[in-house]
Structure formats: structure tokens, C-alpha cells
């Protein structure tokens, strides 16, 4: 690459050609790119908010709600929705297409929230061998209706 400039000190002719040395620039770029590739994270992550109660401890300063809602993930993709307190029932939601019936769960939660609007949190539990992936799926579906999730079953 040539760069030329006209005018110079005391020279006849005036143009001063000089070559821009690209090799050191390439050298710097290579080092910078290598550093960036090693340190950059291409994984976009999100956060789900949840809470956990210490086993055997209950929040002493809060007024107990009228009803307590609990969703449990059972084996073979079965969901159990349990309400206790002023109203009691236990509904089991069988799987749909061999997967969790999230539409039925959301419908159930919507009905509960219509009847008990003060219910803003629920307890989420699961059988011992249920994988974290399934918990997140159910949690994501439930949070659209009931925003607060408390892990239980300790």
C-alpha cells in the first residue's frame, strides 16, 4: 500500500511516497481477535426468580393466605394441583402427548386465581427423579398466571 504526500522540506519534485506496513497491524489484530474469542461468551442467559423456605421454618411476619396452592410434578408427566386452606381439592392432570399438560395446568391456575385473586404465589415440588428441565418448563408456564414460585418438598 502506497501513500503519497506532496511537498517536503527542500526537495525538488515534492512527492514523498511511503509504504504503510500492514504486517504489524495484522499482528495486533490477530492478538486482539484471539483474546476476544477466548473471553467472549456467546451464550445468552436469562433468570427465573424463585424462592426457597428453609426446612422447618415458616415466615413469621407474614399473614397466612386464605388458600395455599401447591403444584407437584409426579412421575410419567403427571401434574398434581393441590389447594389447601379455606378450600381444599387435589386435581391430577394426566399427560398430553406423553408430555406435561401445561395448557390444562394454566387453565386450572387461571380458575383458582379468579376465585382467589389474593393467591400470588405457589409451591412447586416434584418427585425425586424429575429433571430440572421439566421443572423449568412447568415453572415457565405457571409464572404466566401465578408470578411467585416457592420450591418445596424439603
Amino acid at each position, binding site marked *: 500500500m502506497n501513500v503519497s504526500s506532496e511537498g517536503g522540506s527542500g526537495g525538488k519534485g515534492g512527492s514523498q511516497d511511503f509504504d504503510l506496513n500492514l504486517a504489524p497491524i*495484522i499482528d495486533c489484530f490477530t492478538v*486482539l481477535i484471539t483474546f476476544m474469542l477466548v473471553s*467472549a461468551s456467546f451464550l445468552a442467559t*436469562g*433468570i427465573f*426468580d424463585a424462592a426457597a423456605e428453609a426446612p422447618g421454618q415458616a415466615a413469621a411476619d407474614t399473614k397466612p393466605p386464605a388458600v395455599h396452592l401447591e403444584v407437584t410434578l409426579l412421575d410419567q408427566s403427571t401434574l398434581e394441583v393441590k389447594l389447601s386452606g379455606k378450600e381444599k381439592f387435589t386435581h391430577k392432570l394426566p399427560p398430553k402427548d406423553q408430555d406435561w399438560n401445561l395448557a390444562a395446568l394454566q387453565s386450572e391456575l387461571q380458575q383458582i386465581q379468579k376465585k382467589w385473586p389474593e393467591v400470588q404465589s405457589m409451591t412447586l415440588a416434584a418427585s*425425586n427423579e424429575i429433571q430440572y*428441565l421439566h421443572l*423449568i418448563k412447568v415453572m415457565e408456564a405457571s409464572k404466566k398466571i401465578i408470578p411467585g414460585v416457592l420450591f418445596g418438598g424439603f
Partner: protein
Amino acid sequence: MSQRKNLFKKKRSSEEMTLQITSMADIFTIILVFLLKSYATSSIEVQPSPGLKLPEGDSKDAQVEAIQVEVSEKGIQVDHQAVTTLDNFHFQASDLNSSGIPNSLNHSFQNQKKKQTLIAQANPDVKPDKKILIVADQRTPYVTLKSVFASAALNGYSDLKLVVAKRE
């Protein structure tokens, strides 16, 4: 005749190959600009260990700065320090106490809490935090997670922030 001579005249091709450095500089500039744009210098960047697959989820909650617990198939790390080993995502029986709380993890959380308390005592602007980032493999069974959550809650870390990979 002269055409024949031309036909049979072998052109000596130059054996020198010139490297197009200008094109390389162009490519490198574009790559560098892209990497600079995606480079994150924040301390809250979550880098799961190789082999750890996060569950997918759509979450709009913002990233927070908190003590990080990583649960993988072979072990648990707290703030990138190995705390205990797991056997296919399960705690060793010898590590669990009668309540199902892992002693090693409980001890680690106690140390972290002590550190936070000391910092809070020295600096009134810093308050002890209840938040904890959970970076767990999607295959982790609930029995292991239960123990981790219970241990965290016992030591005051009741505000769980579950890290998920954003869906594309």
C-alpha cells in the same frame, strides 16, 4: 512463422505469490468490530462449565450479581470453587446429614455468609445479600436440587435466581 514462434514460446510464470494483506486487514477489522460489540466486561457474566447444558426458557428478568452455585454431573462449585463431587448428579451418601443437607455445601455457604457479614460490617454501603444464582444442568434430578436449595435457604440465601439459556 512468427506466430508459430509465439505459440511455442513458453512464458516463464513468476513463482512469487503475493499475499493480499489488504483483504486480510479488511476481514480482521470486521471480525474485531463484531467481537468488540459482543465482548462483555461485566462480572455477572455466567460461563457454564464445558459439558453443562442449561435448560431453555424465555425470561425477561435482568441479570443480577450474586453468589453462583454450579451443579453439574460430576460436582458442585460455589463461586467457581469446587465444593463437592457428585455421582451422576447425586450426592454421596456420606456427605448428607440426617436432614438430607449436604455437609460440604452447607459449610461452603456458611463461609460465604461469614465473608458477606464481615464485608457488611466493614462497609455500611454493602448489605448481606439473600440472592443466589443457580446454574444447574438440565438433567439434574430434583432430589439433588432440593438439597442445594434447602442448604442455601438454611444459610440465608432464600432468593433463588435460576439461570436458563434463552431460546433462539
